[in-house]
């Protein structure tokens, strides 16, 4: 995706958000009620700014057709793989957290990442992957009493 295409796409998404906000502001009422400006008053102004601003951005992006900097890719092709190797495991970890809780998910995630992405030995991967979440568990759950997500089965695992 070129810089310009990304610029257009993001501006269109923001424009859509602005329109949605505008409709909700109109539903709430943007005028004057007995007690003062109604609940939709401020969001209505925001919606105008968002819609106006993103229309301007879209217009500007259209104008920039053929400009060299605008045709540069948003993400260099060689960088897409590294970014996905960050994003996809992170998403998997969060999905796993929903099931078994954050600490168990973190052990799997850290160990797996260090072993397979980092290509370290099992010993290193397990040492860091297990020790760090356990240390955080002791500090946060036991000392500071800050609970972390347990997931669907976490409570039964004793976390």
């Amino acid at each position, binding site marked *: 995706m070129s*810089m310009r295409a*990304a*610029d257009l796409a*993001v501006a269109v998404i*923001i424009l859509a*958000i*602005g329109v949605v*906000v505008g409709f*909700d502001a109109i539903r*709430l009422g943007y005028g*004057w009620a007995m*007690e*003062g*400006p109604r*609940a*939709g*008053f*401020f*969001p209505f102004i*925001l*919606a105008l*700014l*968002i819609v106006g*601003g*993103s229309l301007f*951005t879209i217009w*500007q992006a259209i104008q920039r057709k053929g400009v060299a900097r605008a045709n540069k890719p*948003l*993400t*260099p092709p060689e*960088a897409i793989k*590294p*970014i996905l190797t*960050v*994003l996809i495991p*992170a998403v998997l*970890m*969060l999905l796993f*957290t*929903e099931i078994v809780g*954050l600490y168990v998910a*973190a052990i799997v*995630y*850290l160990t797996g*990442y*260090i072993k397979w*992405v*980092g*290509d*370290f030995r099992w010993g290193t991967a397990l040492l*860091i992957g297990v020790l760090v*979440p356990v240390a*955080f568990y002791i500090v*946060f759950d036991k000392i*500071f*009493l*800050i*609970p*972390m*997500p347990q997931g669907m089965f976490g409570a039964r695992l004793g976390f």
Partner: protein
Amino acid sequence: MEILSNLAMGLQVSLQPFNLLAAVAGIVLGVIVGVLPGLGGANGCAILIPVTFVMPPVSAVILLSCLYWGALYGGAICSILFNIPGEPWAVAVTFDGYPLAKKGRAGLALCLSFFAHSVGALFGVVILTFFAPVIAAFALRFGPPETFGVMMVTFSSFVGLVGRSPMKTVVATALGFTMAAVGIDIISGELRLTFGSTSLMGGFSFIVAVIGLFGIGEIFLTVEEGLKIEGFKANVRLADIADTFRAMVRYPRNVVQSALVGCWMGVMPGGATPASFMAYGFAKAGAGKEQEEFGQGHVAGVLSPEAAAHGAGTSALLPMITLGIPGSPTAAVILGGLMIWGLQPGPMLFRDHPDFVWGLIGSTWIGNILGLVVVVAFAPLFASVLRVPFPILMPLLIFICAMGAYAVNNRMIDVWYMLLFGVIGYFFKKLDYTMAPMLLALVLGNLAESSMRQALIMSEGSVWVFFRPPIALILMCLAILIGFWPLIRAVRDRMRRPLRAAPRA
């Protein structure tokens, strides 16, 4: 004199053992987050906020503010040694700091940067100590129109002075305010922008936004650039300290001017990053014959941006504690912390919680001195954090960010929002949407909206309420002037161009 006795009280508060411990912990953690690319002062503070719930507010604010000072100091370490800015405000120091290190004077470069930081901090903290009480006393008389005026100045200065694309800054700010409006309207009690979804009813937490935008987003950007860690080893020797003082005596104007630029940008919510670039620009422009040496390891090129960055960071606390308006993203997070600890930021703070305010000011003095000692003594140790291989560091960072995001409200949806904000942060950074005002808008949304609506209720709907009280009028005029500055400049340039072109034709 009253100020001095208050300051003495503040120093006493900050020297209590537990608070001193909090300060040291804050500094050390701060330098570490400062060194690590992808983890900065703002999200370092954001992740620690849940931990502060168990502390008294003074210790909590000391921990967070010292983390900020540590991050300011630490940002320079990896800029100089590795040519990788650990923080956005440490970009300008790479211009001359890295070349200097390449010449074999890494110790000197570090030392120059650390002492420049402490000079900037000194200016900032003096301004904080002596002006904050005055401004707070003045601001006690502010009503809703004036409060709204201050907001307008804050946000228009982002539009006019900071972003590369003013219109995108407007959009980003409005998006921030919109996110703040999601949930229950505090005045009418109606549900807004929730569209029947219960998870939207709780609104968006700015802490989650910080962790996502500045933490996860930065990680994506770091990965994309391909982190190659090849740095210099550096010990700060006594000779380096002596050379640093020699350099400061030789370029006193650069140091003072930069510190003042920094303080100005900190108070005017520009923040440390633009301040460091501005100061570097000024120093280079004023260097005369030595201009050529800039970019090749000129000592003033290290001193200037660093003094400005720390001046801005420190003085960013001034509007935060006096007006309740943070001058930088990190100050915004600390302000959010204040609200969570049950303190109402703003001028009342000086009257109602003097021990808190003066404890913070006192710890700013202590913390910056501690910070200087810590970084000068242990710079190589902190730099070694960067030698941890990235495939180990990165998942640890994501794990810690996830913990921080969850702990704010104990909601799993926040962790997903964090990831979403990370992706948004990546795109916004690439496409020049400035994130700082978006974050500030998210923090200040309720205050801005309620001050606007209250002012309009006072005036029964007349917009003139924002322009009739003298202070509000001045603030609004200032806001309009600054906000439309890019437009004014564009028009001015366009009018000048034909004049210059005329003789040629």
